[in-house]
């Protein structure tokens, strides 16, 4: 088996890649080996190394949602191509949607390959070329994909060193690599990656990650740990970067799909003949799927509008948002508090309910896809966080093999957890199939607000008891409907925390940090209420119950930087301060906020947030992500909620659904806590969870009013 071969034995093989060299491979890995020749064709002459990591257990690494992760126990860690021109290409199945994966993974690869960033290119998320790294979600790229890519690149580096050592007939440990150049000090010989790629071009290696593969130590980092600009920045500022909605194909047509007038509606009849006189318009009508294809999006829209006027629908009743919370509670099985005795006997008890509505991701680029069929093969360009999942959905939708589908995900305009689902790409493929031409489907903003999916709404009950020293003696916390992320309390107390399902009336899915925002809002507001009941300072109250050193550290850090001790003493109905903290996905966040109240309007003036995600890989990107998360979090905290009536979305536009803008930006102090002794974990989500409760607590500090429903609104505020 190849992983039992020594490096020398591997190098002694003739041009490898014959599938018979890897006897125990799963089906997906077989497919990936077949893909190798395609990679060589696309990237050109050079040396290709595919590195496979073998999981010890079938369950390790953790199973991924969405796309496959290789069959059997073999996963491709990395595919590295050394070009004759000296460019090293690393291929990854992760996507770039603004969260910074392109820069970060490039840095990790460049670090291990000992090559400057300018000599490295990262090919992302093209299912025809890259390994399946699973869905880009759950803050997984940093803790899981990054180490895999680094290990794979380190192994590839060792192969190349081995080639050089063999050529020069020296020991490998006498060689050095720096800036893509291998040198033998004693004989003063040098070889660049380009040289080796030229001499050994056409060779391809499939190897396992040797057990003794070591990654660069933090203290030796040159490329990781420092700010690195986004690799395609110039293309972005010049308008040259092609987003999924920009993809041009010869003969490209534009498609639109008929939408129901309300949720659950079914089509009874429609007359597509009304547009049969329209020039160059193709109708696609398959059961309840009705769409049009035209040479311009304007013409497609005109055709669809004409058809829609003839449609007759059955529209069933649907719960409205004003009855949402009662509906969620009524349709849930809420357990009783097992600590009823503690509550009955306690010095002080408190019971509250917190309400969190539906919100939408509102990515800057609405869902879009371009689909093109050729000889039974389908290529789709789309913005999805789940490229291999999308490939699977497409294969299933058209009953063809996954090997006939190629999904290409250009860096796209925002995901935030909102682009996991099969939608625009399925629609584009359906339209393209009938039209016999490539078709672009780009959702309108109204469609994005109505027919995508939402962060689940939630009703959260909290009940706790306190002793006469202000210590929590029991804690009962139930999330109805929105989920279990961060439902557990980090505070020391006897507790039962759980989430129960309900019948959420809207299409629900992931949104940045999932239910951690709802659960942290409820928990940190409730902690504040308990602190107030115990007449103890909110910071002191939390610290008195907190054993987790890293959570304590961010809380103390933020409070100190914010000058909490002095500011909390000021009593001013027009200015309040509040704080909140939380932990999720192995990272830790604490935020202090100052709010101003004027005419019952809440505005956030200052946020100081401390964040610990282990060792920092790219401080510039991390700062951008944290600032972004704080500002994005202002929306659901103060203004965002989906309003629906009788199955119709009533605020499906940017004029009515108010996302944060320039005017809303407070002074932000980002305190990066760099724990270089801890493994790097993701930072895309957790930085958003503390902002809403910090604001709610600040509002209470100023006004004495406790707001338990998001978005936060004081009585008397303009609607």
């Amino acid at each position, binding site marked *: 088996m190849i992983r039992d071969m020594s490096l020398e034995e591997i190098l002694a093989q003739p041009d490898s890649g014959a599938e018979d060299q890897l006897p125990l491979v799963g089906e997906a890995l077989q497919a990936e080996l077949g893909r190798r020749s395609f990679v060589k064709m696309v990237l050109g002459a050079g040396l290709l190394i595919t590195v496979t990591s073998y999981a010890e257990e079938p369950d390790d690494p953790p199973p991924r949602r969405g796309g496959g992760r290789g069959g059997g126990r073999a996963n491709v860690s990395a595919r590295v191509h050394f070009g004759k021109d000296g460019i090293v290409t690393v291929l990854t199945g992760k996507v*770039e*949607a*603004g*969260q*910074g994966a392109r820069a970060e993974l490039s840095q990790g690869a460049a670090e291990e390959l000992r090559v400057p960033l300018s000599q490295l290119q990262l090919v992302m998320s093209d299912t025809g070329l890259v390994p399946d790294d699973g869905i880009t979600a759950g803050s997984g790229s940093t803790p899981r994909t990054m180490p895999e890519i680094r290990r794979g690149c380190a192994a590839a580096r060792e192969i190349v060193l081995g080639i050089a050592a063999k050529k020069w007939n020296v020991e490998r440990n006498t060689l050095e690599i720096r800036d893509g150049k291998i040198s033998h000090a004693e004989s003063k010989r040098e070889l660049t990656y380009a040289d080796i790629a030229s001499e050994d071009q056409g060779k391809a290696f499939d190897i396992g990650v040797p057990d003794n593969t070591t990654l660069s130590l933090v203290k030796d980092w040159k490329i990781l740990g420092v*700010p690195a*600009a*986004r690799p395609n*920045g*110039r293309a*972005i*500022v*010049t*308008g*040259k*970067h*092609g*987003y999924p*909605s*920009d993809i*041009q194909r010869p003969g490209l047509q*534009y498609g639109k799909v008929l939408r129901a007038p309300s949720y659950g509606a079914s089509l009874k009849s429609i007359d597509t003949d009304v547009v049969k006189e329209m020039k160059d318009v193709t109708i696609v009508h398959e059961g309840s799927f009705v769409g049009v294809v035209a040479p*311009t*999006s*304007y013409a497609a829209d005109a055709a669809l509008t004409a058809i829609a006027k003839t449609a007759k629908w059955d529209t069933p009743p649907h719960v409205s948002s004003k009855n949402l919370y009662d509906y969620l509670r009524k349709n849930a099985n809420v357990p009783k508090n097992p600590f009823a005795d503690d509550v009955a006997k306690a010095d002080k008890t408190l019971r509250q309910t917190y309400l969190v509505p539906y919100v939408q*991701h*509102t*990515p*800057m*680029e*609405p869902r879009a896809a371009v689909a093109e069929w050729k000889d039974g093969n389908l290529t789709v360009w789309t913005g999805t966080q789940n490229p291999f999942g999308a490939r699977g959905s497409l294969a299933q939708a058209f009953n063809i093999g996954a090997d006939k589908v190629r999904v290409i995900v250009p*860096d*796209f*305009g*925002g995901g*935030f957890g909102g682009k996991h689902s099969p939608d625009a790409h399925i629609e584009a493929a359906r339209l393209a199939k009938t039209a016999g031409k490539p078709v672009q489907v*780009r959702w*309108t*903003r109204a469609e994005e607000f109505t027919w995508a999916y939402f962060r689940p709404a939630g009703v959260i009950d909290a009940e706790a008891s306190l002793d006469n020293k202000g210590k929590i003696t029991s804690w009962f916390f139930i999330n109805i409907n929105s989920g279990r992320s961060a439902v557990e309390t980090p505070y020391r107390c006897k507790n039962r925390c759980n989430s129960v399902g309900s019948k959420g009336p809207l299409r629900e899915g992931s949104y940045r940090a999932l239910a951690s925002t709802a659960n942290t809002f409820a928990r940190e507001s409730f902690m504040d209420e308990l602190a107030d009941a115990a007449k103890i300072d909110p910071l002191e109250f939390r610290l008195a119950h907190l054993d987790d050193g890293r959570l304590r550290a961010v809380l103390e850090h933020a409070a100190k930087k914010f000058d909490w001790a002095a500011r909390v003493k000021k009593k001013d109905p027009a200015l309040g301060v509040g704080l909140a903290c939380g932990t999720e996905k192995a990272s830790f966040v604490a935020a202090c906020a100052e709010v101003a109240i004027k005419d019952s309007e809440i505005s956030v003036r200052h946020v100081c947030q401390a964040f610990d995600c282990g060792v920092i890989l790219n401080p*510039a990107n991390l700062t*951008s*992500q944290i*600032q*972004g*998360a*704080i*500002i*994005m979090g202002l929306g659901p905290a103060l203004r965002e909620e989906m309003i629906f009536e009788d199955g119709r979305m009533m605020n499906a*536009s*940017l*004029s009515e659904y108010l*996302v*944060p*803008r*320039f*005017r809303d*930006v407070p002074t*932000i102090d980002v305190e990066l806590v760099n724990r270089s002794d801890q493994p790097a974990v993701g930072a895309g989500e957790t930085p958003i969870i503390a902002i809403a409760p910090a604001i709610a607590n600040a509002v209470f500090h100023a006004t004495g009013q406790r707001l338990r429903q998001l978005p936060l609104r004081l009585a008397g505020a303009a609607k």
Partner: protein
Amino acid sequence: MPATIAFTVNGQQKSVSTNPARPLLDVLREDLQLTGTKFGCGEARCGACSVLLDGKRVFSCQTPVSKAEGKTVLTIEGLATGEKLHPVQDAFLAENAFQCGYCTAGMIMCAVELLNETPHPTDEEIITGMSRNVCRCCSYTSIIKAVRRAAGK
């Protein structure tokens, strides 16, 4: 009924024969393949479609192409001179003033007009001038820094 509409785009004379009610945004993207200008909302509420029409920022998603007749249109693709970037483009790069970058063309075009009108804006003037543009990655803080930086030149 199609009409012929002639206008200059990024210094080049263009003539399109199309429904004059079509949005300028669509004509730029679909007819002229200038896809640097983006669709964000279609209701002039996000600024992603910003172009300069005779030097003034317009929301091309709500500007019928007929309004461009005889005028000059400047899009993101027309800002740089060969390899030399416009100072606003340079500033956005220097300040890392984008994450997904989808709003960036609109932000840059808005900032170009703002600085043409007000070469040394106060922070308040920058916020007011940019306030009709949305960024969902919420890179607002670095965008303000980029505009300040470009003004400093």
